[in-house]
């Protein structure tokens, strides 16, 4: 019976994994095929990889876009993690009636569709441009400022802090650690897996963000990767081999960050009692 259950678990996971991976397989294969073969749904690798890559890097400024996206994603991920985990921690550990109200109000901000606040937000940045042009329209900072401290991450950290043992805080206080000390020296190291998960999501969100950067970034030197990909598909005779190459390359950094963070998951597990 136990054996049967375990086989069922493997079958389930194998199927899930195959379904998850197949589109990636097709993406990578298409990177090596001509446009005509991509649209024809060819499933086998071809010989056009170099041609597609040459077209991509020759025709569009992929390097600049990769640089911009990396810069934005790294800075915003770091700041997001610091600011929102502090807030999530603050909301839970120093819980008070008034803070709960503030928190519930913050949650409301998650609920409005971005399409609805886009125009007012753009107008706001128009005004910011006049007093502080270095964070105004057409700056990389403007691309990530609105999504830097989202209620989503505050909510995420607050919920996870619920699993952080209160006794640890009390003990540290008795040890004479300052409140800030507790956060940086006790909380952060303990909550490694939570940070790892948040980092993956934050990086991904920033890396794939499209609608807002599209509007606020205008000059070609500020283009991020999703904006560049959006351009590729817009001609009357799109080169799908080249587009698939761009899509594949655009996916690599997020995969890389996942592998980087995944180590913490493993570490978190091996540190525990054997099952």
């Amino acid at each position: 019976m136990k054996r049967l259950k375990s086989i069922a678990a493997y079958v389930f996971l194998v199927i899930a994994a195959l379904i998850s991976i197949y589109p990636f397989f097709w993406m990578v294969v298409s990177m090596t095929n001509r446009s005509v073969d991509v649209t024809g749904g060819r499933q086998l690798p071809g010989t056009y990889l170099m041609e597609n890559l040459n077209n991509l890097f020759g025709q569009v400024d992929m390097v600049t876009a990769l640089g911009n996206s990396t810069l934005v994603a790294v800075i915003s991920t770091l700041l997001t993690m610091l600011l929102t985990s502090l807030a999530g921690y603050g909301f839970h550990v120093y819980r008070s009636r008034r803070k709960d109200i503030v928190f519930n109000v913050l949650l409301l901000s998650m609920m409005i569709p971005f399409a609805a606040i886009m125009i007012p937000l753009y107008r706001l940045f128009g005004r910011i441009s006049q007093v502080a042009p270095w964070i105004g329209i057409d700056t990389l900072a403007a691309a990530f400022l609105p999504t830097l401290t989202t209620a989503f991450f505050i909510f995420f950290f607050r919920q996870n802090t619920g699993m952080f043992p209160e006794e640890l805080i009390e003990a540290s206080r008795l040890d004479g650690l300052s409140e800030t000390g507790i956060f940086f020296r006790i909380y952060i190291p303990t909550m490694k897996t939570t940070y790892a998960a948040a980092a993956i999501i934050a990086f991904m969100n920033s890396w794939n963000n499209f609608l807002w950067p599209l509007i606020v970034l205008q000059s070609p030197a500020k283009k991020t990767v999703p904006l560049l990909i959006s351009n590729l598909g817009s001609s009357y005779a799109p080169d799908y081999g080249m587009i698939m190459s761009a899509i594949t390359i655009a996916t690599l950094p997020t995969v890389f960050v996942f592998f980087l963070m995944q180590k913490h998951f493993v570490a978190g597990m091996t540190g525990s009692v054997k099952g």
Partner: protein
Amino acid sequence: MKKRLFIAILLLTMLLPACSGKKTETNADAGSAKGDGAGTGAGTTVTAWAWDPNFNIRALELAEEAYKGEIAVNLEIVENAQSDIVQRLNTALSSGTPKGLPNIVLIEDYRAQSFLKSYPDAFYPLTGHIDADDFANYKIEATSHDGEVYGLPFDTGVTGLYVRVDYLEAAGLTVGDMTNVTWQEYIAIGKQVKEATGKQMLSLNPNDFNFVRMMVQSAGQWYFEEDGSTPNLEHNEALKEIFRVYKAMLDADIVKLNSDWSQFVAAFNSGDVATVPTGNWITPSVKAEASQAGQWRVVSLPRLQTEGGLNVSNLGGSSWYVLNQDGKEAAAAFLADTFGSNVDFYNTLLADVGAIGTYKPGIAGDAFDQSDDFFGGQKIYSDFTSWMADIPAVNYGIHTYAIDDILKVEMQKYLKGEDLDTVMASAQAQAEMQLR
């Protein structure tokens, strides 16, 4: 409380330069990158937005080479997807923050009236810079507002029917049998071709109304009355006939359905369909499959059997607009000197990018008289320009895409068996209620 606020503001101000500090580096990068391309002259910098590097962006580059005007101009071309341009223009213009907008922008003709009416002072009239009579009549109709011409026409969307000679021959037919036909005759031929070759006649996307728009203009009609805002659906005989034709084609089983552009292109590249009725801008995509060289011809579009039904139409096409901000004179002068009056330039445009302009003096040059071996030596461009002269001018109005979406739903109902008059009445009612 004050102290807390102070600390917060302090922290915020500390944070912001930290972000911008990093940013300055990229600014410097950007500056040097720009320096390579644009550092040549002391002229006015004119920014232009367009979307296809092989087509309209290439055209701008050629225009820059051809430009010989008095005002020195540094043209800076920015590539943006068409939908992205629409979105950026709308956001910036509606928020009253035009910072970062270009001087010249390419806008699809179907959307032109919407922009001109929504943002009345945002565009700079070109009336004094070009002679409207030099351009195809239907183009000027699409780009004018309140008696002023705002758009400088770029390309025509003159349509044709691309046909596979080999498939026709297999069914015992000739290209002549497909010339100047009605859609009913087209469907009959489609059945013959299918019987002989097993190939479908054409590929259609039920969620893309290009096909409907193309047919409705061929009858000199549109979704609106002549004012461009009163919906004309319920009693639009041309539109009803289109619905009937559409259904008849599906019933005859001669349609290969597709759900996006790439599948549409794949359908003829892979030889699955015998004809492609669409705008001339599809030519490069047809020629992309070199193995089919010599098998294709272009004949006139089938016509609707309604009053005023013609064998010509237009599908798509776009025009250049100048934004009403600093640099508008230079931008207008640049356009007027190139797209607005340079006859040789139109030859280069066709020879180099395959774009057919609508500037009448410009479309008579040598390049238009070339025969093309891919099309069995046919002089396709002189055919296209001769059809272009007959395209009926219609007012595209301001709600073309909104009506498209209303009609798509009604089309589905009609195909499922609802009565044609009922669905058209329903479309009319919705349009009247939603679009004011």
